[in-house]
């Protein structure tokens, strides 16, 4: 359950962000990554972004997740 999933920030304001995970958009908390901006890629764990990642790393991870079915984006608690 320590898995973090990459997504792209599409909105960021006041410590909150909306992150796009291949079409699924979720509101997440950015308190651990206060320096991220719209367009950045982040790793998200349990509703919190934990670090910024490069687009290349993010897409490579998504490729693997898509193949393996390890990660499933679920409806998230607000």
């Amino acid at each position, binding site marked *: *359950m320590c898995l973090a999933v990459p997504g792209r920030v599409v909105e960021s304001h006041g410590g909150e962000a909306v992150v796009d995970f291949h079409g699924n958009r979720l509101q997440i908390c950015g*308190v*651990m*990554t206060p320096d991220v901006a719209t367009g950045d890629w982040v790793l998200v*764990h*349990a509703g*919190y972004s934990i670090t910024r990642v490069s687009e290349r790393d993010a897409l490579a991870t998504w490729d693997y997740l898509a193949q*393996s079915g*390890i990660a499933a984006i679920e409806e998230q608690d607000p």
Partner: protein
Amino acid sequence: MNAKATSLLDELRRASDQAGRRVQLMEVCGTHTVSAFRSGIRSLLPENVRLVSGPGCPVCVTAQRHIDAVIELAARDDVLVATYGDMMRVPGRRGSLEQARAAGARVHVINSARGALRLAREHPRETVVFLAVGFETTAPATAAIVLEAERSELTNLSVLSCHKVVVPAMLALLAAGDVAIDGFLCPSHVTVIIGWDAYRPVVRQFHKPCVVADFEPNQILRGLLHLVRQIGTSRPRVENVYQGVVNGHGNPFALALLQRVFVPGDTTWRGLGAIPASGLELASGFRRYDAVWRFGLSLGEDHDNPCCRCGDVIKGNIDPDACPLFGSACTPLTPIGPCMVSSEGTCAAWFKYRPPGEREVSLAQGGVS
């Protein structure tokens, strides 16, 4: 298998030849466990390299006494319990949270710690008890909601902290000496938070190499390659192959959350027993959010099924199919031990991915020559 994986396996075979002895490596993280099984890496490794699973599944290492305590709280009329889904089916002494919910207890599955905050706001007349499990990746979120509860003067949130930290468990495994471990494949997302400097005590005190790798198969292979190369040269150190994501010092914002809200505490790990300073307890300034203090909980003792060998599986002492319950009484549909409950549990991974009848020769208890 892709060309890169083939190349990495070739390099690993050469490195293992140069090491010239049997090597037993432990993957600390449950996500590594699942990925290594799923990708078939275990069966592709050189004959003298063996991968064993460690205590990196937070569900699996949560002591039964915490499950019993939260089930007791769930029976109260003035309590709502919130927890991550993996915890619902972990058996306690008198059943699981799932069974308690079926019997009428109000137990909510949440995907984020913020779900516990939402429940507390929606149910001001009850106390929401958040059964908080997880390692350093997950614990900062718990810290964040405690601070948010304080800031918004929300008084009906309570945390039963089962949070644990990884490095003391690695050190305890080595100190116990029950299983031969030549090096550690270290978790990627935990290390995003703590930084790879955190593993230096493992090298300094026990001269064991540590390599941080992500969970993709090529990352795992690269991590194993670096471990075996280190063993071959007898120069143990901390290395990171998850470059660009993990750094030496970790995430300072997450660490600040942990340091503000939690203090290290002795805690009991299933299979490993009590390990000093391996748990995260709420600091005295946040005691009013601590379920143990608020409800005067006495956590008592564990009463695990005497036939269940999850403790030995977590320590890497045995493979799951050496447990008399594995695959018969204990299956993913009827789990008896926590390693079969969690999707990241070693027993669940074995059950799902291991071909029937395939056994490895255990290198535990001094089997490495």
